[in-house]
């Protein structure tokens, strides 16, 4: 996969990503903040492709992805994208050296949630919840865990799946009401990938309040639940049933950093899936 991706060349990679971006509502060239798709004129994913082109490292990546596929219900390519963005060394990590999941990035509540991730006990029995920390600015608490280095990708993948299955699905019911089931079954794949990434980045959020200005509600607290509430309100106001595809057709929230990051990760996931498909086509077996 890594070699095929690299062989596309800078132009080929950019064309592929911009085509994907068009579907997800990402401007050509991507955004220019922490949600950037491109770096120095090429895909930010190029770093991952280089890792996957190194046979030794690729073996570690493959081993980790194999465990993710066997042990979790996550989208494997999205797990790879998330791990690479949160803490790039996680994708090749192996062994039992203990790591602190907060320091490694993106797993702030693993200590509290480890029993809710539907992972085998054979895995989680080696995960130790650590003393919680306080964020002195927000007064929220972080609940990290100490886990074996080789379990990082499993943790990211399981968290991705849990955020989607537990938080997102429940929030669709809460915000879309009786139209929730139809919305999930009728959503496009691209839209679902965006929501999946958004749910991992921001598992909750304040309920959207249509009595207040949108601009006053945006920010860190505007999680995926807030976005669901916003789109539901927009659709009903126009006499339509809410749809999860509004996340890619309605550009009202595109300046929200959470959503930009979610779309970026969804785009990278689709790009990797495209490369995987091409790889399978070329393999003789």
């Amino acid at each position, binding site marked *: 996969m890594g070699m095929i991706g690299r062989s596309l060349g800078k132009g080929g990679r950019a064309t592929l990503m911009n085509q994907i971006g068009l579907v997800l509502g990402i401007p050509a060239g991507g955004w220019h903040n922490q949600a950037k798709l491109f770096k120095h004129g090429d895909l930010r994913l190029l770093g991952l492709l280089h890792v996957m082109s190194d046979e030794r490292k690729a073996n570690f990546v493959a081993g980790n992805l194999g465990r993710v596929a066997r042990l979790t219900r996550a989208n494997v390519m999205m797990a790879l994208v998330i791990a690479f963005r949160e803490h790039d060394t996680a994708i090749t990590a192996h062994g039992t050296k203990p790591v602190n999941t907060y320091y490694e990035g993106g797993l702030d509540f693993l200590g509290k949630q480890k029993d809710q991730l539907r992972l085998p006990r054979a895995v*989680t029995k080696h995960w130790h919840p*650590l003393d919680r920390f306080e964020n002195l600015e927000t007064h929220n608490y*972080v609940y990290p865990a100490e886990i074996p280095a080789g379990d990082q990708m499993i943790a990211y993948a399981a968290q991705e799946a849990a955020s989607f299955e537990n938080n997102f699905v429940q929030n669709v019911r809460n915000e879309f009401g009786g139209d929730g089931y139809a919305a999930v079954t009728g959503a496009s794949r691209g839209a679902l990938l965006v929501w999946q990434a958004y749910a991992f980045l921001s598992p909750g959020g304040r309920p959207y309040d249509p009595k207040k200005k949108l601009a006053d509600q945006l920010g860190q607290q505007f999680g995926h639940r807030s976005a669901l509430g916003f789109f539901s309100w927009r659709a009903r106001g126009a006499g339509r049933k809410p749809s999860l595809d509004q996340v890619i057709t309605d550009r009202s929230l595109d300046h929200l950093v959470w959503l930009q990051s979610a779309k970026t990760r969804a785009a990278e996931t689709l790009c990797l899936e495209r490369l995987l498909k091409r790889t399978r086509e070329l393999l003789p077996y």
Partner: protein
Amino acid sequence: MRTFSLVSLILTASVGVSPHSGNASAPTWERVFDGKENEWPSAIAATGQDAVFVGGAWGISTVTSAGTTIDSTHGHGVLGLFVESSSSVYAVGEGELISHFDGKKWSEEHVGFLPPRNQRRLFSEHMLYRMHFDNGSDEAIAFGVVLVLVKQPNGTWAAPPQTERDKLLETGAVGPELPNGPSHCDGRAWHWFGRDRAFFSCDDHRAFIVERGRVTPKGKVPRQCGSTVGALAYATGEVYATCGTTLWKTYGGTWRRIEAPNVRAKQFSSIAFADDCIFIAGGRTVWRSCGH
């Protein structure tokens, strides 16, 4: 810089609570600290009924019957307070902060670089939030996510060599090997109370106290607490614990819920115990209940 302030008064307005049926006790709570707008306690400690320390982003407030004094930590927010004895209390926090109370006053023993708040990657390399004491060397050890500092004989603090650092960090985070520990204690969650004393629980909710290497079972952590409790305090062989805004105490191998003060917060931030009094911080307030 010590400043004398009447920020808080020890009020005697008690909060009467009707007795609970079943297993809960009905303590009387009184406010001992009401923080100003930016004074949210992140840690509390107590050395006596009338000596409580409250730490947070502003520094340390020492609350006694004579009033409240504030010791600023100059932007280095306090994340942990640890009592070694009535004449030795440590505060640790952001930017490698380590301060020490000698029974009379606070002194800054160590600070390091503090990144600007908008660039600060919280809970990162500059943070210290816990302490423990090495049994073999009797050294005080402050640790955070990756940072470990060991108190030297001359009173300064220094980072140990890498291999020793990893071992100290591991012991601080998940505790030492326990030759007499329970069997099949998976996913051990460890909390140091101080020298030679700690609490830990297992994945199956079994709870234990460790004192000088001796492990004592303390029943099972209530299911309401999920896989982790919030704040913990040691009280003469028993444990007080918070889960969200509920307060629990062990009675041998049983956990009983205790009526807690009504707070407008999602959870209690810290608890402490001294002289038969339990102190609990929620929101910007610290409460006290005595006679336990």
